């Protein structure tokens, strides 16, 4: 009997191939959409992590408490040793010491008088070490609008918008006026070698990027840094792993007595980011849910129609003496098989596409005439454990539900009615 049913299933393409294809396509779309949403989601997180929070971040206790003021006077000293420790204890992570600072940028004329001036938000990051990952993390190559990246000491990048306002040309001198770690005024001359635009409003308004060691010199912050960012090598955020690293680090380094001792915070613990993360997550969850519901309705209906189409065959089977329970069960098993194969195939294809999107991405910069979104010019997907199971909701559950419900018609209808369906 089972062999008989399987034979029928395989021979009748409208009962096997087409439903499997339908389920497969539906599941595939669901999986791709899910991974794409997760990709967009983690790209938002990635931008925040790369520019600001890291996946974890080390600051001094005191610096963290007054983070809003960028209190470089509270930065911790001994970056070199701490970096050695970090690389030893957490060799898989990317560790990035940075100094954030506020100040004025002054563009002098040929007489040394102020030609233009603007307040600036600065970042001292490691640009000059050959193995520094910062260029990649900040996507600097792509962000350059004019000029080039710094190659030697005392060279800086300015945001393109600000450079235009200041009327500063590549190769001109720019003087940073700020305050040292110890509160006295600092001035330092840099050469502007490039202008940049990230497509992130906060970064593009008025920022400068300089090499970390230059800033340490300029602000008298020898071997000091405001913060050390830690990032997972694939640049995806893993909440639990981040917490593990945090706990391990804090247990070893934190000293509540000493407000200059380093403390580690995860991305989620930093002001506002936990909420932001949850918001993005729930937004994409809603998007995914809506799609899953829509896809479920589609496949539910496919299951429904598939069985209604077969009332004739069902009528004959009943007339020949098959019992209703047996028939109902065989329909359910059939739709289970179809749902299962369709879902597995759809998930496989969907994951394959998502994998391509995750690893390579689709470059959409050419589609965007005004390439302001440098960080997002590649559309990426992200495969999560959920990607492997999400397809089963529309693929298996909905298909099964459609068949079960339409199958109830077998019970509801008089057998003679089912027979009528085939007399047309």
């Amino acid at each position, binding site marked *: 009997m089972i062999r008989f049913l399987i034979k029928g299933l395989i*021979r009748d393409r409208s009962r096997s191939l087409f439903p499997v294809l339908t389920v497969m396509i539906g599941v595939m779309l669901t999986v791709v959409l899910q991974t794409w949403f997760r990709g967009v989601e983690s790209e938002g997180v990635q931008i925040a992590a790369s520019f600001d929070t890291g996946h974890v971040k080390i600051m001094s206790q005191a610096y963290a408490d007054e983070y809003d003021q960028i209190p470089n006077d509270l930065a911790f000293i001994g970056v070199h040793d701490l970096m050695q420790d970090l690389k030893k204890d957490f060799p898989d992570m990317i560790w990035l010491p940075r100094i954030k600072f506020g100040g004025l940028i002054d563009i002098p004329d040929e007489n040394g008088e102020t030609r233009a001036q603007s307040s600036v938000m600065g970042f001292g990051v490691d640009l000059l070490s050959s193995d520094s990952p910062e260029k990649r993390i900040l996507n600097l190559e792509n962000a350059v609008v004019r000029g080039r990246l710094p190659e030697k000491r005392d060279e800086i990048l300015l945001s393109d918008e600000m450079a235009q306002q200041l009327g500063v040309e590549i190769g001109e001198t720019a003087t940073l006026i700020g305050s040292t770690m110890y509160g006295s005024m600092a001035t330092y001359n840099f050469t502007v070698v490039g202008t940049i635009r990230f497509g992130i409003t906060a970064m593009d308004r008025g920022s400068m990027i300089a090499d970390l060691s230059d800033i340490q010199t300029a602000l008298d912050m020898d071997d000091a840094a405001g913060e050390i960012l830690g990032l997972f090598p694939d640049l995806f955020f893993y909440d639990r792993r981040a917490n593990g690293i945090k706990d391990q680090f804090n247990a070893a380094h934190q000293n509540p007595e000493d407000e200059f001792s380093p403390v580690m915070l995860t991305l989620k613990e930093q002001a506002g980011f936990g909420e932001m993360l949850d918001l993005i997550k729930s937004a994409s969850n809603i998007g995914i849910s809506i799609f899953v519901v829509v896809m479920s309705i589609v496949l539910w209906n496919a299951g429904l129609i598939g069985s209604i189409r077969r009332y004739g*065959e069902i009528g004959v089977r009943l*007339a020949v*003496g098959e019992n209703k*329970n047996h028939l109902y069960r065989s329909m359910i098993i059939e739709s289970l098989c179809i749902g299962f194969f369709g879902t597995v195939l759809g998930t496989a294809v969907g994951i394959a596409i998502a994998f391509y999107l995750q690893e390579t991405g689709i470059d959409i910069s050419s589609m965007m005439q005004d390439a302001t979104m440098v960080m997002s010019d590649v559309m990426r997907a992200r495969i999560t454990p959920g990607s492997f199971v999400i397809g089963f909701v529309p693929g298996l559950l909905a298909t099964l539900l459609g068949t079960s419900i339409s199958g109830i018609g077998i019970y509801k209808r*008089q*057998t003679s009615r089912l027979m009528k369906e085939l007399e047309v």
Partner: protein
Amino acid sequence: MNNSVIIKTKDLVKVYPMGQHDLVALDHVNLVFQKGEFAGVVGPSGSGKTTLLNIIGSLDTPSDGSAVVLDRNVETLSNKEAAKLRNQHIGFIFQTFNLFPVYSVFENVEFPLLLQRMSSAARKKAVYDSLEWVHLADRAKSKPAQLSGGQSQRVAIARAIVKKPEVVLADEPTANLDAENSHHIMKTMVQLNEELGTTFVFSTHDEKVMRYLRRKISLIDGKVAKDEVISKKRGKST
């Protein structure tokens, strides 16, 4: 009840609710069929022939009265019992042959046996025996789409008789066939009736079929208008 009575209806009523007034498809039908009969229910379209056969075949239930088939009261049978009755004792033949299109002739005829526990060797023998009856053993591997209408109906007959049922119910079996095929089909059924003793109940308004009937029951508006015995060669009628 007489031992040779195979089907008996008593004040059988079938009412279809149709909005305001109900539609009475069968109106107090009292009929008795003996084992081995070759009987036809005739009547104009809508007179209730199909309804009667469906109730006898336990595909449908009466609204009132009773139908006893092989000592079983069809209105009290569970789904499972009704299925068993159909599978083991009743063969159906339809106007539109209703073969399974994706299965071969052999597999179509084999289907009722798959529902019974039967070894594959026994199944094979039974299928070929019944295909011999309808002279289609050589087409066992064909698909229904490759058969003519007459051949398709013969496959349907083979499917109905493969399990050696006591009763074959045939609802307008020749309506879709030409004269030659109709005669051929009827002759096959007469032969089965005579050699296997299978009881046949037809519904028809085909004159060609009437010539073969040994009992003719006329239904009009759900009532038995006439019940005449045409030949007493085999089986007795009331």
